[in-house]
């Protein structure tokens, strides 16, 4: 199976990967590529990072259960969870967390062995020119605090000696692709992307790596942070654009990705708490659009020359829906709408007394309460709902759905009327799907049936979004 190694660098990388995962869960097509996310972030205890790992684990659980047929593996489903996500350690058949930064609890000065040179060594002046005392005293456990100059040094070393990078080079085969997600205005992402790209391009001994079609999404400024003067943070979003401009200028002629996706906002519409350690920033529309770049990339062939991609929205609104987003976003909206409808089913069915599949397919209380895969789906759905809620309430808001009333669902997707006026339509369609005898003969995977029937039911009504 073809693989796409998705390098998620820094906080933005993590959040975009979250969106990728969500879109994949909702049925976005990876064009047959297995997604191998590699998260690059020196933060040891970043909640977002942990959450992403957890989310991916849930995804993988759902996916695995959807293709599991006892001793055999089924083809992936159409629709929900239709693509595999596999970690690099899984490719290695190891359980080591290869994404952990070695020695990351050290101070930066220790990390670079500053004490190895004497007090009067002229190289002290070089170090003092490149790094502030604060940089040098900075423990890597909290990341690079928006200092790509440090990030470059540390990540460079991390990449150079890391098991995951060796594994990546080992497992990257002809036809595999590389996709790098980073922000340009922060520390880790800004430093990681060109560095990683450079390392990949320099992989002389691994021609598959060196020649892998490479895409990258560079997330431009899209959110702000509260005034650092009030928080004591070293990060000032006031210079995000400045840094972006400087970085883009630096990128010119430096970065070599075949496809370089730009995504960002012209003004910082949302302002988050300025807390580097927490970084519990709400999901953002831009991250969602950035995530869509991966799917676009996976559909494209190797270009003759480097391509730079941008996308637009139809109308500059604070809250985006189908109309304001424009037709280009229908696949995203459909993916989100589909999963949100799945979530509706996941949450309503356990309490549905007269649902005939309870008996015919065993979608009973035991299934809902004890099936590991369904439980994973429930958890995933909860995360998804939270994620969507964040998107829908952020600035700019991604809110194409009216999701909060299962009794009035014609307008579930704003701007387009669905034929299902309430959830019973979807249940009915699930029942109809279950009558497909061919499907019934393919496998005996109760959870896979659930997802198949749900997708058929939902797609029945939402497929008009594809038109």
């Amino acid at each position, binding site marked *: 199976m073809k693989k796409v190694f998705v390098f998620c660098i820094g906080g933005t990388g993590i959040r975009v990967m979250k969106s990728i995962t969500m879109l994949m869960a909702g049925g976005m097509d990876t064009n047959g590529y297995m997604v191998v996310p590699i998260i690059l972030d020196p933060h040891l205890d970043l909640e977002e990072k942990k959450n992403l790992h957890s989310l991916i684990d849930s995804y993988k659980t759902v996916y695995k259960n959807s293709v599991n047929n006892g001793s055999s593996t089924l083809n992936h489903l159409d629709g929900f969870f239709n693509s595999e996500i596999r970690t690099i350690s899984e490719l290695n058949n190891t359980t080591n967390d290869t994404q952990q930064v070695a020695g990351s609890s050290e101070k930066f000065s220790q990390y670079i062995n500053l004490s190895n040179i004497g007090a009067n060594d002229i190289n002290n002046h070089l170090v003092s*020119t490149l790094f*502030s005392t604060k940089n040098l005293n900075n423990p890597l456990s909290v990341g690079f605090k928006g200092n790509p100059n440090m990030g470059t*040094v540390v990540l460079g070393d991390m990449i150079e000696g890391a098991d995951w990078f060796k594994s990546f080079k080992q497992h990257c085969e002809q036809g595999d692709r590389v996709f790098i997600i980073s922000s340009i205005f922060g520390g880790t992402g800004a430093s*990681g992307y060109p560095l990683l790209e450079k390392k990949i391009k320099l992989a002389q001994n691994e021609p598959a790596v060196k020649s892998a079609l490479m895409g990258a999404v560079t997330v431009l400024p899209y959110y702000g942070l509260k005034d650092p003067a009030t928080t004591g943070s070293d990060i000032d979003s006031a210079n995000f654009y400045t840094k972006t401009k400087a970085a883009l200028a630096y990128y010119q002629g430096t970065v070599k990705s075949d496809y370089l996706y730009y995504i960002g*906002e012209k003004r910082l519409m949302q302002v988050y708490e300025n807390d580097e350690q927490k970084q519990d920033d709400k999901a953002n529309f831009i991250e969602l659009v950035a995530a869509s*770049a991966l799917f676009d990339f996976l559909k494209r062939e190797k270009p003759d020359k480097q391509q730079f991609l941008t996308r637009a929205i139809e*109308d500059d609104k604070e809250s985006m829906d189908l109309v304001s987003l*424009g037709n280009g976003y229908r696949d995203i909206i459909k993916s989100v709408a589909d999963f949100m409808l799945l979530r509706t089913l996941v949450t309503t069915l356990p309490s549905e007394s007269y649902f005939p599949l309870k008996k015919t397919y065993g979608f009973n209380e035991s299934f809902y309460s004890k099936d590991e895969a369904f439980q994973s789906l429930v958890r995933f759905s909860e995360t998804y709902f939270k994620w969507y809620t964040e998107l829908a309430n952020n600035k700019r808001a991604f809110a194409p759905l009216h999701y909060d009333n299962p009794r009035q669902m014609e307008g579930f997707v704003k701007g387009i009327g669905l034929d299902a006026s309430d959830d019973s339509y979807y249940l009915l369609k699930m029942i109809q799907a279950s009558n497909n005898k061919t499907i019934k003969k393919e496998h005996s995977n109760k959870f896979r049936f659930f997802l198949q029937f749900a997708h058929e039911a939902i797609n029945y009504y939402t497929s008009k979004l594809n038109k």
Partner: protein
Amino acid sequence: MARLDLNIVDRGIQGTHWVAEDVGLTAEHLDKVLEMKTDNSGALNSLPTPFARFFVAREAFRRATEEHLDTRNEREAGFAYRQLVSDILDVFELLFNIKYHTNNTWKNGEQIELREWKCKENLEYLKKQMPVLYNSLDNYYTTDINQDSLYFLVYTEEGKDILLACSSPITGFVTPPDLDKAIVKKNGSNETVCSGSQYNSLYIHRKSGGFYFRDIKMFEERDQDFKNYMFNELFGSDNVSESFRELKEYIRSFKNDKDIRNDYKIKLTPIKTDQNTDLIINQLAIQSCDEIDINSFFNNSIIKLPYRISRDRFKAVNYKNADAKRDYDFLLPFKPEVLNLFDGNEIDSYININRNDITVFLRYNGKEYKKDYSKTPSNGAGKIYELAPANINFDLGIFPNILSHRDEENNYFKIFVAGADEDPEAPNFSIDNISLSFYKYKGTDISIIRELDPSSAEFGVLPAVVRSKQVKNGVECGTKFYELFNSSFDVIEVSLYGQHSGFVMPIWERSQETNEQFRYAIDLGTSNTFISRCKIGENNKPELFNMQRPMVSYLHEIPEDAQLSLSKCIEDSIFDRAKNKIKTEFVPAIIDGNDYKFPIRTALCGIKNKSNAPKLFDNHNIAFFYEKLMSNDDQNIHTDIKWDKNDAMLRVFIRELLLIIKCDILQRNGDLDRTSLVWFKPLSFMGNTRAMYLDIWEKEPKNILSLNQDRIECFSESEAPYYYFKKMDYIKDSDAAAVIDIGGGSTDFVYFQDNRPIMANSIHFGCDVLWENGLIEFENVRNNGIFRKYEKTIRFTKNGLQDLNDCFINVDNATTKDIINFWLSNSDSCDIKKNLSADFKPVFIYHLTSILFYMANMFKENEYTAPRTVVFSGNGSKYIDSFICSDKRILKKIIDMVFNRVFGTENNIHVVLPSERKESTCYGGLYRDPNADDVPEKVYQGDNSINYDTVGDINKNFDALKSKLVSKYNELSALYKDILDLLKREHIIDNTENTSIYVEKSKEDMGVALSTYYKSQVKEKYQDEVLLYDSVFFLPIINRVFEMTNLNL
């Protein structure tokens, strides 16, 4: 519908799918991005490269350019970028002004060093020591920096190194991130705090105010010099590397800045690294200002003089608002090198007088620099050092004050300095506390003239010589002299106590190049010296030597006073304690023909203990003041220099005369080296004295006037007057004429026949014999009768002369000749002439009779006919008309009587007693045909029966000679009696006067005296082979005259 690209710029893409384009976001796109300002330096986290700092700096300049060009004030760069730009500009400015800082503000060993970091060897080193960092640097150095070397600017203060910057191929320099600043609130006020605590105590005074690396100063706020250096020199060329684009664009965005000028010129010099190489960053040669810093030209104090500076003679400060009647002036409070900024010896400066202080302004290159001076300075103001309250005064005089148009002729200048502590208490200021320095333009650059030894230097200044020191309870100041050899000067810097200094610029008179040539004749007599001048090519009567303008420039202003002569105005306007000093130790400011005129007494004033090594002005000078003023106790007056065996005094005397003549020539635009000089040799010069004179008159004119020997003529003192008298048609019958030139020390005779000098003779018997003490060799003997007669009774009507007389009498080394000459010189203020005429006429008659008798015998024995005309010349001859008789008719009778008696025939001799007595020698010298044969000198010992050429001849025949002379003395005595009788008859001598005592005295034996004095004056002094040019005839007569002076007491 408002379509929108989800991008930081709108590229106008179609549709809402991902749209691919071949071109990424370019700088052109990015320029449209409106950025917010950032005030947080800590947030300048930059780019994915370890060299991010270099690119942040570039970004800072880009932002600063945007801010500067943004007329709507919408594009603020913010504090963080502004401070970064300011800091980097500070690095450039610090290096630009490094000379200023090193010379002016860094007094405690502060210094900077540019330490080279060689890429190759250091990366190799880091590979082993810091491999993590090395790997990163290795990845990026080539693409981001790509320089063989970087340079670290390290500032050392109190032994501690502080990194200020690193060179950058992008912005010239980058400062370390620890130098980034943040503004924090502290106790309610804003405080700037550096990111690195090591920089919080860094306070380097910026030349243009404030502190480097501390307060923000954007380009427009900086000094004009620095701006123009950056704009025109560093980034004015199209050849500047493209990698400097942002910095260059920032600097070039100030093209309309008021201080930027295309024609701005700054002298620059390369900055050196610790490897002694020029600091070149990415082909950009970093330089420092090599101009002497304008502000550094200001002295820390300004000297306020208690008098006004002569604006005719010196360039000094201008005032914007001073009282026109002010009684003070300031010296220019600058280092003389300030003149290098200006063309043509002009300094554009003025002083503004404020209520309690002053402000000095200096305008240069269209900019005005200023410094405040106060009596009680604070806040960086300089001190006004006021001489008046400090009871200090000084003045200076420059001699000569005129320059030849030929620079090589400007080879001698003497600067007189007078300084006094006017406090009645013990002096704590002395002449030692004043020092002068001299500067001269070489091309357009002014530089100091160093003190050097003339034997090993082309030109220079001799070490200052103190002539006088102010003494406790004394009334006069101290003095010192500076001498410049082979160089003129353009600036005098005055320093007091080595702490306070200022300068003035002499305004030189300048001679014009013409074809005017002058001939000068110098008659250096025993008692008097005379100089005359004529213009070569004109047949006019010679001129009295007087000058057109002063030859000395004094610092003080000369008030105009129509009632006083110029020389008096000059001398009277100097401060009191220097009034006598400028007269007694320096050359007169002007030989005006009145207060100072020739003839002068042949007298030299000098420090007592320096008579062995006299040096002009340093310790000796011509005593122009002689008989008018007394010198100080530590000074002697030498009045016998003509006959002194040591040539040093004479040399000094002649040197000063020649320097005065040089001034005169230049004032008259004469051609110095085509000047003719005539000097006169006395016939009685003998041996070494003769050689000494020849040497002096060869070397001194050569040194001072650049005269070759062919421009120097020497005639006999004796013959010279004849040519003048002849020219003046005083000699009607020139068949045979005699000129008798009676000087102080000698009397010369020349016999002319048909306008040609036939013979000349000189005797050491001048009028001084009348005032001296015979042949007594002790100088302090005061037995002369004339002196004794009046020493206690003489009274002067003119103020000061009585005191001066007392001084003369009380000074041990003043001889009777000196004192009597003093009386005679001031005869207008006393009765000396009347008294001498009344009391000592027989003595004068005896003196004259001796001369005439000797001359007549000489002519006769040399077989010349008696002259048809006898002309008297020489200053000494004035005793004839002053004390004997001015009636030429009577005088003719005397002369006829003498010649009749000696020749035994009747004679009718025309007597000429011209008014130009002393002058005639000089005048005659000027008109004598230089090609004419020298007059044959004949020696006459009173007898020609034997040839007495040498001393040996006389020794051998002394008895015979004595016999002849004794006989002649008897004849003389008889003649003397007859002349006395004649004069009684002519009522020249009162009939009642008892002249018999003189007759009797004249009759007394002369033989013993002749033997005695011959032995002591000739025989014991000279070897046999010496040619004796003098005449032994007068030896006893000298003594007899002395004896006669004592007959009427």
